[in-house]
C-alpha cells in the first residue's frame, strides 16, 4: 500500500498523520480528517470576511491557514486603483471562489462569477468544514429542509462559514439547527431530526407531519449533482441576487 493524503510512510509501514477515518483505495491508503481548519481546494465556493484593504486588493479571512488576496480585477466591478475601500471594507462578508493554489501557500480567489459577490445584511455562523456535506445533505436535502421550514436565505461556504438572512427568528432557528448538525455530525438520520426540531419549534405552533410535497420540477435536484452546491434558498435553484453598493 502507498501512503495517500493524511498518511506518511516509515520503514515500509504507513501511519496516519491526522486524526481521521482510514479508507483504502488500492494502491493508496488515506485518512480523511475529522477535524481541522479548512484546507482550500480549487473550485470551492467559500464565505469570507474582509480583514485588510490595500490599493489594488483586499485580504480575506476564509478560515484557511492563510488570508486570501482578492484582486480588484477579480470582482464584477470596474475599480480604479485606490478606490477599493469604496466597494468592500474591513468586516464585510463576501462569497468567493478559490481559483488557484500556489506552492507558497497563497490562495487566489475571485468574486467574478455566478453566485459570487458581497453579502448584505444577515448573520455569519461557523461550523466545522468537515460537516459541510452534512449541512448540504444528499442532493441538497438538508439545506432544502431548513429553508423550507424557516424561509431563511442561506449561503454555505465550503470553508464552514455559513451566511443566514431572514427574520431574527428564522436566523435564530437556522443557527440552532446548524449547531445541532455541527455537534452530531456522525449521526445518521440527521435530516429527519432537524425536520422534527423545526416542526416542533415553528413560530405558529408545532406543525403536524405532512406528506412531504414534491417540489416543482425546476426546484428538484438531480441526485448526481455534486453536494457542493453552495446555494439553497426559499427561491429554489436561483442563487440569491446580491446588491452591490449603489455608487
Amino acid at each position, binding site marked *: *500500500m502507498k501512503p495517500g493524503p*493524511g*498518511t*506518511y510512510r*516509515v520503514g515500509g*509501514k*504507513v*501511519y*496516519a*498523520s*491526522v*486524526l*481521521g477515518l*482510514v479508507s483504502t483505495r488500492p494502491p493508496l*491508503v488515506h*485518512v480523511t*480528517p*475529522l*477535524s*481541522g*481548519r479548512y484546507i482550500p481546494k480549487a473550485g470551492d465556493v467559500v464565505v469570507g470576511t474582509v480583514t485588510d484593504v490595500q490599493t489594488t486588493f483586499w485580504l480575506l479571512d476564509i478560515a484557511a*491557514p*492563510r*488570508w486570501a488576496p482578492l484582486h480588484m480585477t477579480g470582482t464584477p466591478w470596474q475599480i480604479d486603483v485606490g478606490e477599493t475601500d469604496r466597494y468592500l471594507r474591513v468586516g464585510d462578508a463576501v462569497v468567493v471562489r478559490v481559483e488557484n493554489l500556489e*506552492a*507558497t*501557500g497563497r490562495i487566489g480567489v475571485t468574486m467574478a462569477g455566478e453566485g459570487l459577490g458581497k453579502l448584505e445584511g444577515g448573520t455569519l455562523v461557523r461550523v466545522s468544514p468537515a460537516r459541510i456535506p452534512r449541512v448540504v445533505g444528499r442532493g441538497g436535502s438538508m439545506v432544502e429542509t431548513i429553508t423550507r421550514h424557516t424561509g431563511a436565505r442561506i449561503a454555505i461556504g465550503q470553508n464552514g462559514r455559513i451566511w443566514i438572512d431572514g427574520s431574527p427568528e428564522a436566523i435564530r432557528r437556522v443557527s440552532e439547527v446548524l449547531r445541532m448538525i455541527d455537534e452530531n455530525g*456522525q449521526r445518521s438520520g440527521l435530516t429527519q431530526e432537524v425536520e422534527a426540531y423545526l416542526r416542533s419549534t415553528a413560530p405558529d405552533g408545532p406543525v403536524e407531519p405532512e406528506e412531504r410535497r414534491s417540489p416543482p420540477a425546476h426546484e428538484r435536484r438531480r441526485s448526481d449533482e455534486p453536494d457542493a452546491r453552495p446555494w439553497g434558498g426559499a427561491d429554489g435553484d436561483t442563487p440569491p441576487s446580491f446588491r452591490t453598493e449603489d455608487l
Partner: protein
Amino acid sequence: MGNVGAKDVPVLLSPEGLRLDGRRLDELRPIRIEAGVLHQADGSAFVEWGQNKVMAAVYGPREVHPRHLQQNNKAVIQCKYNMAAFAVDERKRPGLDRRSQEISKVIAEAFESVVFAEEFPRTSIDVYIEVLQANAGTRCAGLVAASVALADAGIPMVDLVPAVAVGKVAGQIVLDLKKEEDNFGEADLPMALVPQSGRLVLLQMEGHMTEEELGRALDLGVKGCRDIYDRMKGALRERYALTPVVGGSA
C-alpha cells in the same frame, strides 16, 4: 531536640515501599484527559493529572504574528506556557518569567520534531498552555494536553507526544513525581516520547543520579509514556465517538 529543618521533610517512602499518596514506585497518578473543550479554538484539551489541572488550546495553521517570524518553507510553532497566579499555594506573580519561557521553548521544540510543518508554509501554529492548578509535572501535563489539542485541531503529526517525569526519591527511582517528591527528592527527570519512533523529544534533569539509575529511569519513563499514550488516544476516540481500533498503524 535535633535538626528542626529535618522535621519538615516528609517521609517520602514508607517501610512497605509505598509513596506519600500510597502509590507504588512505578505507578502514575490518576489521569483524566478530555479533548475538544473550547469552541473558539481549532483544537483543545483539558488534562487533570493528580492534582494538576491544565488547559491547552491550539489555533492554526494561521497567519503569523508577529510577521517577521514567518518562515517561507514551513509553519512556525509558537508555544506559550503560562501558570495562573492561583495555581500554587503561595500566589505566583503573574506573567512571563524565566521558568515559563524555558518551558514554552522546550515544548515548542518537542512539537517541531513531530509536526509536518512543511505542509503549511508561512503560517503559524499557536499552542497555548494554561496551568490552572499545579502539583509538579506541569510541563509534562501541559505537553500531553497540547498534543491532544494539536490532534483535535487536525494538525498532521508523526504521532502524539506523551510525557511524564521520572525521579529519584528516597534513593529509589520513581515514576510521576508529586509536589513533595519533587521538592524533597534527589532528582527530577521530565521526558517526552514519540511512540512511533521511540525517540525522546524532551529530556531535562534536575538533581543527581548515577548512570545506572539514569538508565533505569529512562526505561521507567518510556513505560509511563506508553501508558499515557493510550489514554490520549482514548480521549480522542471519545471526543469523536469512534470505536476502538488496534494500534496506530494502517
